[in-house]
């Protein structure tokens, strides 16, 4: 399963949405899919399933402001770690 599929699966299974029902380039908070606790759940998922540890200074809208941004953030981090 690709990282994209894993993240999509995680969000759908844990936040009771379906793929295609939410916008990928808008904030999950603003769309009401998650609250602040949901961000924590996603960062725990990134750590456990994708091996990406979220640094404190990275917890912002730049990196977590949409599905696409979270995905891009995790691949950037992985590249930085694993080259």
């Amino acid at each position: 399963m690709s990282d994209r599929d894993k993240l999509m699966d995680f969000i759908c299974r844990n936040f009771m949405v379906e793929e295609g029902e939410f916008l990928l380039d808008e904030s999950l908070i603003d769309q009401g899919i998650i609250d602040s606790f949901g961000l924590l759940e996603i960062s725990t998922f990134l750590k456990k399933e994708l091996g990406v540890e979220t640094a404190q200074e990275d917890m912002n809208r730049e990196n977590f402001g949409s599905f696409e941004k979270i995905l891009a953030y995790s691949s950037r981090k992985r590249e930085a770690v694993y080259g």
Partner: protein
Amino acid sequence: MCGIVGILKTASAGSIRNEVETLLPYLDHRGPDAWGSYGAPGIGLGHTRLSIIDPGLGHQPMVSDDSVLVYNGEVYNYLELRDLLRSYGMTFRTDSDTEVVQRALDFWGTEAFRKFNGQFALLYWHKKKKELIIGRDRYGIRPLYYLPEGGDVYFASELQVFDHLGERKRFWSEEDLFDHGLLWNTTGDRTVFKNIRSLEGGHFQVFRPGHCGDSVPYYVLGETYSEDNTSSFEIQKEMLREKLNESVRLRLRSDVPVGCYLSGGIDSSVTSLLAREINNNIFKSFSVSFADPSLDESEYQKLLVDSLGFDHHSLKVSAQDIEENFVEAARHFERPVFRTAPVPLYLLSGLVRQNDVKVVLTGEAADEILFGYDTNKELKLLSLWKEGATDDKVENVLLQLYPHLDHYADSQQIGFLKMYYEGFLKRFEGPLAGLSMRVSNNQVLANMFNRDWNIKFDFDSFEEKIGALLPRQSGNWNLLRKNQYLEMKTLLPGYLLSAQGDRMAMGHSVEGRFPFLDHNLVEWAFALPEASKIGGFNTKHILKESFKERIPSAIVNRPKRPYMAPDLTAFFPSGRKGRLVEEFLNNGIVKDYGLFDSRMIERFIGKIERRGIESAGYRDNMLISFLLSAQIIEQGIRNPQRKKIDKDKMANRILEEV
């Protein structure tokens, strides 16, 4: 405190009275002491009585030359009103407040409502004019619903009464159910059921046979508002003490013993302290404690009991107790709820009755009128942030917001918290004020409901809808006042006073009284400068400062924590779905009832079981109660339990053939 029913339809006196009487057994819990009925051509009224004032003579329906009254509640200033009416030459047959209410309406008409200080819902039939006036107290403490059907109208204190009018009457209103999910209340006179209306607090409405008038407000929160910037804080404190004292004094008027609820917080500490000082014979006090130390407040309750010397009774509630009693309590909620916290209060009212107490004082609504809620802090924070507060300042306040939620107190996660609140910078000054956060979090429900309902949430149009409900004068209010108005139209009557208040106490025939909801106090507090109520980020500042010498300092200075009970832990014992989840959220019943999307329910349950309760968030905890309570209510509607008339309780049967 009592239950009332009414029927307005074309029928003979005898048949309409009979129909009214068939409904009385369903309000027995509200009034187990005596029942009464009235029938005249076209009108029937019924009453179940919990005798509190003038137990010997205050029977209802009460008939005067002009009118017939059934009334649920108390008008505390009835002695003063009686003196006033006597000065106009009126005489009284009883010592009851009911008679004063009736004669006041006879004399002043609907102008009387503005003179009442209390909590009530009433049906008043004017015999000559052939019109029915229905009225409700200012803040909606006591319930009143009606169901127009063809040219007929049915009235009742509780929604479940309508389940006993032949075929099913309660059908969910999809839009209102979603509104209720977003706001913890429906808007205006709507209920979660199609066709059934709720008379709003502070309103009356006039019905004639075949004609249903518009509801008319006789009170609007903040109607006397003009900002008080002149008196010093010392004087304000003195006035708060005086007004609260007067409110408590009036609320101790009762011919039966009064007790009090102690939560362990400052609000109920203050009301019980004042009650104790006014009447030394008082009291018995009652508290809920929890097996789970993260929810338990008994340490603070004990401090107060020791300092005031109450005869104290405490009920320890476990997660298992919640699961075992949830169904019975949910039948009384009459609307879905987001917390299990009403259940312990249902059990507590049982304990109150066992101790021969019928009336309790509680600290409800101090948070609304003196800015105790964290939403006030959130709004202040957002204001500061918008005005350019430093990151350090913002982070500092954020960390203090919700110390009882683990992840909020963890400075490692501050970035996420900031991200979350940042999203509200563009909304918080809009029509929803502090409710923006609640609404945003709860919109997840749109995905949980039956997909055929096609429920979609649009923030902008929802804001517009709520904005239209704000009173004209709200344009002159600052943000926190507007927020108070919204809280007092949503969470307070939609949950705290109803599902968690009236229904849980009346479920065991106990009447709650709320000193912080005396309108003289509420209006005075509304005009207080904001800084007196919330000093910096210190909520209920003036209350703490006014009573800090008389209440143990540990109570005054403790961080605020909302009253909560075990949620997911009750319904997923040892992490696996328990009996109620199995029974009410299985695939078959979810599909059969058609309220929720069965795939999403399955996904939700799967998430909790897979990841464990400790990984669940605040929202998951709210969701489980909402889903279960809605399903339980639906089951109750489908299976109404028939009850027989208890002839021994029929103390008063009146027929007028004119």
